[in-house]
């Protein structure tokens, strides 16, 4: 790499163009935060509320002209804290469990398939019938009745299998 290229790359990392406002940068980064949160709460309404909360908490603490890496790190640190509070309040999840889970949550890149990949890895580690019921229900959107028909079982049995499959999925620990 030439000296000019090095200088150009360094300049891009260290300082934003003067015309870029913190709000514009924060909005682009908040897109990633939104995807990150959505992948963990599974619905738009909660994801929007929590993203808004992250913005409200973090943005007043960012300096105009902060490099994107600092903005991202700060927003994701806040997002982890906000998600911790969400689960802790809604479910009473223990803080130790939350911490274990959130430690896996490195900030995704712009085109990340992080959530999908992680879920697929979890599904791959389940017994066949558990994996099948969760794939049909969550990834293909089947109703309980349709899953029962597909798996040649009853709705009641599928409901119990869904519960056991989700409990098993929750126990899977990925080596990340």
């Amino acid at each position, binding site marked *: 790499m030439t000296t000019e290229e090095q200088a150009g790359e360094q300049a891009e990392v260290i300082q934003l163009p003067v015309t870029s406002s913190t709000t514009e940068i924060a909005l682009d980064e908040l897109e990633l935060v*939104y995807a990150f949160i959505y*992948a963990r709460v599974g*619905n738009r309404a909660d994801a929007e509320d929590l993203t808004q909360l992250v913005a409200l908490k973090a943005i007043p603490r960012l300096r105009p002209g902060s490099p994107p890496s600092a903005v991202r790190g700060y927003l994701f*640190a806040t997002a982890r804290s906000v998600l911790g509070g969400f689960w802790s309040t809604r479910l009473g999840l223990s*803080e130790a469990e939350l911490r274990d889970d959130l430690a896996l949550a490195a900030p995704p890149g712009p085109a990340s398939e992080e*959530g999908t990949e992680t879920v697929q890895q979890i599904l791959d580690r389940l017994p066949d019938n558990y994996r099948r019921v969760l794939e049909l229900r969550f990834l293909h959107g089947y109703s309980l009745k349709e899953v029962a028909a597909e798996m040649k079982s009853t709705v009641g049995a599928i409901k119990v299998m869904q519960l056991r499959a*989700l409990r098993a999925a929750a126990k899977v620990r990925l080596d990340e």
Partner: protein
Amino acid sequence: MNRKPEDRLERIVSGLLRGRRLKLRGGDAEDKEAIAAAARLAGARQGPQRMHPAFRKRLADSLEQTQSQGWLTRRAALVAGLGLAAGAAGGALLGRDLGPVNARAGGEPIEPVHGRWIDVAAATELVEGEGTHVVAGGVGAFVFRHGDTVTAVSSVCSHLPCELWWESHAGALSCPCHPATFTPDGKPTEGYLLPALNKVHVRVTAAGRVEVLGTE
């Protein structure tokens, strides 16, 4: 009503698959890990999500508004439940420092402008020496009972705007955002040199109820 666990979980799964908000009822926490797993599966269903344009617009408007109003004061943000550098001089402007700050005394009590005593728990529910997270309107706190004495500190780190966690095994409050921990009386223990956590006014009523000075 005593519903079966599989029925309770199905109600939650069904709501998630219809794109509804997570709504939990008494007894649901029994299967908290399974519910969290269901939320992740539901979240991964359609791949990475982007903000709805209307929401992005609302967010942009609120961010512009925040910036045009200038930085929030420490006091206003603490009472609103937002975490800020507690050691900054009273009324000082924020947003100045993302790095570690110098050690400062901190520990001033939070004084909400229109404070109100909020019932948060029965004193008997607090486990001796263990931190219990409570919310009193806009004020979040960790409450501790030592014998007949009850104390409370802010649940927000004195550096980054992060909600602290109670680490029972370590007997300390821990920040998820950086390596900072605090004792139950709010003093920093290691890592960054931080101000102490803000105290939160707390009292025990004659009826044995714990009340925290919070907001509506």
